[in-house]
């Protein structure tokens, strides 16, 4: 199982906690999928004087690792302040760092991301950066102190799956020992299985589960797909080839 900043988690599935029909269904999704990490947005739900307390108590009661995020932050300063607030609220130095660079596609701002990652690492945070699959950006993030990378599959909430297989594969090859998590863009379990087959360590989902007609069933579907994909990866799959190879021996069959 993946190890993030010296903490081993029990599942390859991380779930976001926004947009569910109700907290009861959210809890059900966690239970049925066995997801090991819950990401929580601090910014929007904060509303000043700990007004989001009741909801956060529900998240804590899930009994999983809490990974607060800086969702919705569009600048370095905003992201840093939000991270500091999250550390106090959740008593954790883990932070999923989002610095959004484009309002429509919610694409990460690579320049702001590196800067914020450096500041937060210096302040003792364990940074989980939401990034693109750009190799150079990822190198900079590692130089800034990130020990996990979270490239997108596709833009947040689109459900388009893995948009750049080549890029994701070369990222995996380039960082063989770093935990890599597909963050954002997945819509179907098969896409999560594919991420596992590429050797990724985990996936993070929110919309795909929360906005499914039956979120708990979808969460379980993803958990099963992750297991299938990971087994496929670990089993060292055959190489594709052009020549057909019969799986049943033809020996003994009459010549026709």
């Amino acid at each position, binding site marked *: 199982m993946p190890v993030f900043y010296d903490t081993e988690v029990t599942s390859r599935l991380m779930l976001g906690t926004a947009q569910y029909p109700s907290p*009861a269904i959210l809890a059900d999704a966690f239970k049925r999928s066995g997801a090991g990490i819950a990401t929580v947005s601090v910014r929007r739900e904060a509303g*000043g004087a700990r007004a989001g307390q*009741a909801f956060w108590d529900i998240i804590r009661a899930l009994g999983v690792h809490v990974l607060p995020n800086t969702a919705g932050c569009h600048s370095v300063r905003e992201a840093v302040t939000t991270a500091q607030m999250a550390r106090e609220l959740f008593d954790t130095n883990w932070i999923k760092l989002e610095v959004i660079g484009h309002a429509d596609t919610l694409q990460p701002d690579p320049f702001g991301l590196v800067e914020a990652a450096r500041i937060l690492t210096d302040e003792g945070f364990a940074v989980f950066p939401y990034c693109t699959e750009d190799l150079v950006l990822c190198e900079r993030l590692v130089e800034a102190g990130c020990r996990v990378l979270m490239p997108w599959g596709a833009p947040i909430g689109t459900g388009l799956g893995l948009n750049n297989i080549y890029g994701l594969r070369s990222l995996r090859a380039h960082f063989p020992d770093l935990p890599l998590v597909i963050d954002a863009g997945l819509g179907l379990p098969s896409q999560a299985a594919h991420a596992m087959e590429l050797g990724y360590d985990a996936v993070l989902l929110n919309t795909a589960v929360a906005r499914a007609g039956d979120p708990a069933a979808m969460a379980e579907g993803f958990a099963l797909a992750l297991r299938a994909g990971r087994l496929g990866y670990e089993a060292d799959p055959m190489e594709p080839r052009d020549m057909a190879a019969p799986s049943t021996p033809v020996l003994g069959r009459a010549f026709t």
Partner: protein
Amino acid sequence: MTGAVTIRGAGVVGLCVASELMARGISVTLRDPAPAPGAHGCSWWAGGMLAPFCEGVTAEEPVMRLGQEAADWWEAQGVEVIRRGSLVVTLARDRRELDQFARRTTGHRLLTGAELAALEPHLADRHDRALFFEGEAHIDPRAALLHLRKRLQEAGARFEQTDAPPDGPVIDCRGLAAQDSLPDLRGVKGEMVVLRAPDVSLSRPIRLLHPRFPLYIVPRGDGVFMLGATQIESGDRWRASVRSVMELLSAAYALHPAFGEAEVVEIGVDARPAFPDNLPRITVRGGTIHANGLFRHGFLLSPAVARMTAALVTRENEKPEFAHEDHG
């Protein structure tokens, strides 16, 4: 528990429960810290849509089933119920949202652009498809609250302006204030805007599906429209954020540019009282019945909750559907 009952909280639940009890010949005293329905209560900020089928897209099944009682109930109380259905539309690039909404709801039919234009001429040429929920209705929630209160008063109900818990049989119909005895109750913040847009004419609630900024618009008559509502996991009842208001206004503007010329009449905010499954609960604990947690379905589900609560009081039915096993 018969004869005389005290109800704590004179919001939509309290007033509906009082009405059901009075109808069964039980005399009622309502206690509320405020003198009359108003801005202090969550019910004041409601949309007033009686839209059980649309709500069914995310709500649990009882909301859709029991919500269908609401329109008749309000009408029987003498409240003006506008039965013109409701419409669901999307912006052009989100048309798949409409397909998904249609798959996950019942009680609708698909309209062509021309059919939509016939129903709502001001939406003509703006959408080529819409879902029409013909069986849905809407009311003016503030008028409904004031009307129920007046009607109860005329029928002999007593109103006491106090927060103090009374002696004797009690029904707790408070909103978030009931957190003091129901720790599972949480606030879900909602922000709304009221606009006066004389250039826009709509005769039924319109829902705009949007992946980020969903919106509904309820016409209140005389060119007044209520825009709602955000849904944020927070118990904050006082601060409407710029972002939320901006999102509501942008969505309205995208629905019809004439909203750009509208006058902002009111910006409202409160927190809906909700349990973890976002369904109401009726909890019996000692001499008190708690009927709370109506979430965003105050006007839609209070009639059913009131009927169940009254049946519990008169012992017609001691196991109502929303009965909650109390282990607290």
